[in-house]
């Protein structure tokens, strides 16, 4: 090889290495990553003890990676490369038709307690343990109790990718049969959502794993039917649909690194009486159902009920309404405003570090007239909360 080429090779290498190194040194540290929705690591404190255990090295590694120059841009570049290689997905997120993102891989919980990361298989024994937990809770309750296990985008938007739907169907069948055998009032929504999705309705977000406000409305209708309250269902046109964001990028977008897909639109459905409700989260009063300050951030879904909290309550002053206790994950957050039109609500976060699995005792404590589970199928495959219900 010629001397000139050698010089160019060495020069480019040196510039590349030192360029990023200097960039890291000179650019100020970032505090929060909007894209990843988490705090970035800042310079760790040095102690001799941390150094000797290797902990300090780990923290420096994390710090270096978190504050690396052009981090978001590089993550996007990796996503594009994966798509260019024909994989049709990145980091376990499928790129479906029309920019639909479907999270496919997650950390599967095996029934012996071990975890298999990045898998789309599931352990039928884990599912069965969850089903049995629900059946146990059902047997311990004497009030109307309904169970809504929300579908993953993979289950609902199946038509948008070539990912085989058979796995979803097998999982749904196992859940359906198990709950039927236990005589549980199961609100099955996946076939309905799948149909609506195929009909072109915007029921699940494209870049986020949640259902849209429209999807939440359909879920509300199903829950009302499950309690035999179908006559009280508020019709769709009773609401004023207000678009509050047209640039919503959700969780699947963050994980998938496919920066080229277009954002979602987010709506609030207003009835006009929203001000008459008192909403508290972990004992602190909220401004209402909607914490609109989140609309200015990336984490827009936290607009609904202020994001993640352990206990959220909704009441309407001066009225004696039945109390509905919801054992839930985040899918209940945009569903709750609909149900609040009929019930006083207590929402207990099943995914919380605190234990809200003692359904019968908690229903007694909150003087529940109705009880509901709103929990994602994905969480059923990756966590053991349902298995602990009683």
């Amino acid at each position, binding site marked *: *090889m*010629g*001397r000139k*080429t*050698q*010089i*160019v*090779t*060495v020069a*480019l*290498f*040196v510039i*590349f*290495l*030192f360029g*990023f*190194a200097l960039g*890291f040194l000179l650019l100020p540290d970032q505090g929060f990553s909007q894209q990843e929705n988490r705090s970035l690591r800042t310079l760790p404190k040095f102690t001799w003890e941390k*150094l*000797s255990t*290797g902990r300090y*090295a*780990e923290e*420096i*590694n*994390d710090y*270096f*990676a978190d504050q*690396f120059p052009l*981090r978001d841009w*590089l*993550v996007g*570049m*990796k*996503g594009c*490369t994966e798509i260019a*290689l*024909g*994989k*049709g*997905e990145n*980091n376990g997120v499928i790129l479906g038709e029309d920019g639909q993102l479907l999270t496919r*891989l997650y950390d*599967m919980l095996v029934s012996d307690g071990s975890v*298999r*990361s*990045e*898998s*789309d*298989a*599931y*352990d039928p024994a884990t599912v069965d343990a969850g089903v049995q937990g629900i059946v146990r809770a059902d047997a311990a309750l004497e009030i109307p109790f309904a169970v809504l296990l929300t579908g993953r985008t993979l289950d609902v938007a199946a038509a948008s990718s*070539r*990912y*085989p739907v*058979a*796995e979803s169907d097998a999982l749904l069948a196992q859940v359906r049969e198990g709950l039927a055998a236990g005589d549980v009032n199961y609100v099955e929504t996946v076939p309905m959502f799948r149909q609506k999705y195929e009909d072109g309705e915007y029921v699940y977000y494209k870049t986020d794993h949640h259902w849209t406000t429209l999807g939440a409305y359909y879920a509300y209708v199903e829950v009302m039917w499950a309690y035999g309250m179908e006559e009280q269902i508020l019709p769709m046109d009773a609401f004023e649909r207000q678009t509050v964001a047209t640039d919503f990028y959700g969780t699947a977008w963050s994980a998938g*690194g496919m920066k080229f897909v277009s954002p979602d639109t987010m709506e609030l459905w207003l009835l006009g009486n929203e001000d008459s409700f008192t909403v508290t989260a972990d004992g602190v009063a909220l401004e209402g159902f909607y914490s609109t300050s989140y609309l200015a951030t990336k984490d827009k879904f936290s607009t609904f009920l202020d994001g993640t909290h352990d206990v959220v309550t909704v009441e309407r002053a001066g009225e004696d309404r039945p109390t509905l206790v919801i054992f839930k994950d985040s899918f209940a957050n945009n569903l709750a405003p609909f149900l609040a039109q009929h019930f006083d609500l207590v929402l207990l976060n099943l995914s919380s570090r605190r234990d809200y699995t003692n359904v019968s005792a908690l229903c007694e404590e909150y003087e529940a007239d109705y009880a509901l589970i709103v929990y994602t199928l994905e969480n059923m495959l990756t966590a053991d909360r349902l298995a602990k219900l009683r």
Partner: protein
Amino acid sequence: MVFSSLIFLFAYLPLTLLIYYLVPRPFRNLVLFITSLFFYGWGEPVYILLMVLSITTAYAFGFLIGRYRESAPRKARAAMIASLIVNLAFLLFFKYYNFIAQNLSLLPFLTLPVLPELKLPIGISFYTFQIMSYTMDLYRGDCRLQKNYISFGTYVTLFPQLIAGPIVRYRDVDEQLQARRETLADVSSGIERFCVGLAKKILVGDMMASCHRYFQTLGEQSPTTLGAWLTVIFYTLHLYYDFSGYSDMAIGLGRMFGFQFPENFNYPYISKSITEYWRRWHISLSTWFREYVYIPLGGNRHGKWKQYRNLAVVWLLTGFWHGANWNFVLWGVYFCILLILEKAFLLRWLEKAPRFLRHVYTMFFVVISFLIFSFVDADAGWQCFAAMFGFGTVGITSAVVNYQLLGWIPMLALACIGATPWPKRVFLALSERWRGVRYLVPALCLLALLLCTAYMVDSTFSPFAYTQF
């Protein structure tokens, strides 16, 4: 520290290069010695002491060997053996104690305590073998006594090959330790080699690993024949790209500092027999065992049966060297049997067979060897083996297996082609035809670096598979 980390590439390496080329020549070994200790101690500082102890032992015994090897060979021999015993004792204790304790405790009258906090020091198998090569080379008179502690320490700790080889024999770098010239040609070819290795490891090896893990998990839940084959095939590709990529990076980094390390891989997957495969896979390890175990035992000079015995010793040790677990021993025995069979008659048969068949034969047994190698849990390994031949499966394939495979076909094809000499040959042919093609080299290096950086940032963490050994 590992090469495929941001902190290595963008903090450690530029800084080390800078200091190395700024200091006057006499101090360059010292720079390498200190920076290498830092490299090693970054994750596990405590084990620096162990390594320094190993180095000091071999260095000190070296003086005894050097003094007596002419005048009193017996004393020199005793010093050599003492040095080897001390170093092997470290290896034996830190790598094998728990394994030995667990297995001996199976005997009814014996209970040895298991020490769960005993962690394997990274690279101990590699650097112990390097240290031993110095002791034996010195005893045999193949090299001079190294009086300079810094130079000897540099030989052992040299960060490019410290944690995963190639295992450099002392006599191969003896000269380079005293006097070496870093040239522009070396540095630039070292950079090329490093970029190739980094791309092999990150862009191919890690991808193959994730696909292997995927199929393995899937197989635990719903085993299929195709899925089982893909599990081991992706593992076979993963290990080649991971390990040979690492060796490429080591050789490349060595050149950046003026060292010439021996080659470690030579397209092993194009072999036409297992004998040939072992001349192409992890060459520095096979060379070490041949040089320091097989030939001293008599090699093939004392008849067929003694040769088979010697092979058996070498392969039991090779297997055990790879890890403190029975599957590695089994893996060694497996290759031992294949090699003896080939020496006895198979090679003669194979020579008459069509080329294609010889490739299929070799790759079949290589793939099976990686099945043994990859499953530490014998039951899971057996289940996968059975599934490969249609036993205990839910079908030949499944919709999910097909889905995953379809998305990975382009990458799989690239990985298979990349394991042959063809890409290199085509590139050389093209650059002979059009002179401009070679100007692509720096551009390709830059592209590889950029893509690897993107993948590293995305994953933030990607440990090497081969450093556990």
